């Protein structure tokens, strides 16, 4: 049946998980730090950067389930490498919008770890509405000139190449008139403010001041990029849902173990009924998000409405159940869970950020509802 794992996939998961814990996870980063580039090349040599891509570009085959497996293992790290920004988002733009020549040129470089990508789509006033694009691309001679601002571009500091959503026609929130541009990170007129995020990743504010690009810098259909963007973001939502599933499973393990050893009032706190029930509820919560994430992954290649509803459902559940596990992971550990010394707080923060990424519960719930009525009226989109 289609809704369970193959033996091969389980094997992949175990391999990645072992690798992550030994090399990229919380303890590994503390005990044997390595440069980000070195970690990245390791991941490349293990083939992790390629699981989502077609074999003809040197990829692993491209089942959405493989990305889920990798991201779950990353979630258990937690891993802070720019995998989602480079592979899922950047690579997603290539996969879904790139023409054959572009794919053949860039995907192998991505898989080899030589070129890092990022996708700049959010803007100061867009919130989670992907159609809300103010950054303008104006035709100038044979090319375009980009002006505007993108915010919280994950993986921005590491990226060699930026994909940028820009408006080539229409008004700020029109669904039509949006195009995708490929911009070298060091192009003239691109200026970045780089920073770390609360959960240990990197991101940038990127300003585009009359950045000149040739006509070929457009990836995909000029003016018709929104459906592609929505598809790419849906891929990424599933990826971060899977990451959250990994973080939940790690948190649940930590909590069971901690509660069995932490003594208060003369007994391990795991003997208190309220603690036991909380732990049970955390496991119940895990099952919900895990189920809907897998379901969403399997729906990624379906029509946009089915895909959108399945993805939104997973994200909605994450916003309730993963957040529940995150909070209680901290709560059950008490003060030590509130510190930077333990991975528990990092899992919690990562889940918190994932909940917000691409829109939290109410946003995705509205999308879920609007897609239901899709045939009766126009959907509001993301």
């Amino acid at each position, binding site marked *: *049946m*289609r*809704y*369970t794992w193959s033996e091969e996939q389980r094997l992949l998961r175990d391999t990645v998980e072992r690798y992550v814990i030994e090399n990229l996870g919380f303890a590994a980063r503390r005990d044997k730090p390595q440069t980000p580039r070195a970690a990245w090349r390791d991941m490349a040599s293990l083939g992790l950067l390629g699981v989502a891509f077609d074999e003809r570009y040197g990829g692993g085959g491209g089942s959405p389930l493989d990305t889920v497996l990798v991201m779950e293992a990353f979630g258990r790290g937690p891993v802070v490498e720019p995998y989602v920004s480079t592979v899922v988002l950047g690579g997603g733009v290539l996969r879904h919008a790139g023409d054959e020549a572009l794919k053949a040129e860039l995907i192998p470089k991505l898989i080899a770890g030589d070129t890092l990508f990022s996708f700049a789509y959010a803007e100061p006033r867009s919130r989670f509405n992907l159609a809300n694009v103010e950054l303008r691309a104006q035709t100038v001679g044979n090319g375009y000139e980009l002006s505007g601002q993108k915010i919280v571009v994950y993986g921005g500091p590491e990226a060699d190449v930026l994909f940028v959503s820009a408006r080539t026609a229409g008004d700020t929130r029109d669904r039509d008139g949006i195009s995708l541009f490929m911009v070298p990170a060091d192009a003239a007129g691109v200026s970045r403010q780089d920073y770390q995020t609360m959960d240990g990743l990197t991101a940038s504010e990127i300003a585009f001041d009359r950045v000149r690009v040739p006509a070929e810098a457009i990836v995909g259909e000029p003016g018709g990029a929104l459906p592609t963007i929505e598809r790419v973001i849906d891929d990424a939502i599933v990826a971060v849902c899977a990451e959250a599933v990994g973080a939940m499973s790690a948190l649940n393990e930590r909590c*069971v173990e901690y*509660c*069995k050893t932490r003594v208060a009032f003369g007994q391990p706190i*795991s*003997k208190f*009924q309220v603690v*036991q*029930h909380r*732990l*049970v*509820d955390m*496991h*119940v919560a895990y*099952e*919900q*998000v*895990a*189920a*809907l994430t*897998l*379901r969403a992954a*399997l729906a990624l290649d379906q029509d946009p409405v089915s895909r959108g509803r399945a993805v939104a*459902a997973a994200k*909605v*559940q994450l916003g309730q159940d993963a957040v529940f596990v995150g909070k209680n992971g901290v709560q059950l550990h008490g003060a030590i869970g509130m510190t930077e010394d333990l991975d528990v707080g990092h899992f919690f923060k990562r889940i918190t950020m994932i909940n917000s990424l691409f829109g939290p519960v109410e946003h995705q*719930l509205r999308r*879920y*509802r609007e897609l*239901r009525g899709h045939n009766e009226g126009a959907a509001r989109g993301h």
Partner: protein
Amino acid sequence: MDIEQLDPTPEDYAFRDEVRRFYDQNLTDEHRRAALLTTWALAEFEYGRSWQKILYARGWGAPNWPVEYGGAGWSPKQRLIWEMESQRARPPEIMRMGKNLVAPCIMTFGTDEQKAYFLPRIISGEDWWAQGYSEPGAGSDLASLQLQATSDGDDYILNGSKIWTTFAQFANRIFCLVRTAKMQKKQEGITFLLIDMDSPGIELRPIYTIAGEHEFNQVFFTDVRVPKSRRLGEENAGWSVARHLLLYEHSAGLLRMVTELRWRVRWLNELVGLEADGYGGSLRDDPDFSRRLSLLEIAVEAADFAAAQLIADAKPGAPPDATGELLNIRNRETAQALTELGAEAVGYYGAPDQRGARKVVTDVPVVGPPHVLLPMPFYLAQRANTIAGGTPEIHRNNVAKHLLGL
């Protein structure tokens, strides 16, 4: 979940069509109405019974039983298809205490005579069983039960009472846990008996629920003689029979629960289309209502997929672990929340006490439009969903112990 997710073969589609045809041709309007009016565990008795007879005639009286006892020999995939179609058709819920609860125990622990005598009568719909477990002083803590069975030659003599026995007023048999000895560990000293309801000394007291229905009974036993040949398993070993039953019930219960959840979502979606929002539209247009309904729909999608995964991942022959029990903790909450939303949907018309009109055949007119009949009693009755079959507190205790090792 739908059939597309099963990687269906042409044979699977054919099977689906066959089941669907069967439902279309055999499920009468009365059966459908009986199903619709079911507020708690079971449909009005007559309709449950006649539906079981129709199933039996088709050879599907107990499809999940082993083939030797009349099972249909279906694959897991066919079982899922059957559940999907059953959910779509919504037949009246039959008294499952016989078919789903006591029968598997008889198969495992019964003598050849017991198997030969009871199983055919269960599958044919001739026998109807009640469950004699709870007592006034033994609910969640079942092992505290006190109903006394004293050995007297070839018989036991029973004194005491059982309570919350659903539909005992219709049953001709009852299986009971009784105390045959006082031991250090109270789980020991319990025996499992198969009893005729017409045994002299059995009396019923009806108990009416807050939904206004005669669903429960207290069953009094005064010097009731039960032949020892009606004992299932060894004397004082009834607890292991009961545990077997429970395990079976949890695992079968998961799929039934998911089927029920999907139906409730559909029902609620219809309901909101029938209710005015007071501002010129229907309740379907109400953003808050649709928001809450969507949240529950998503919970049901999760329940559905998790259950299907569990079934797909199950090692053949291995006993089910507590994961089904774990999943059903949330599922029961979702089930209740759906009825709560239903009760809210009908607005003022949740108030009238319509027990007279809530029968398959009745002369009592409905107060308000027909769709307001079910929701409020459904909600009230469904509070039992977190009481009968173990409270969430007990289930959480179990899962903590058996699955998390706490």
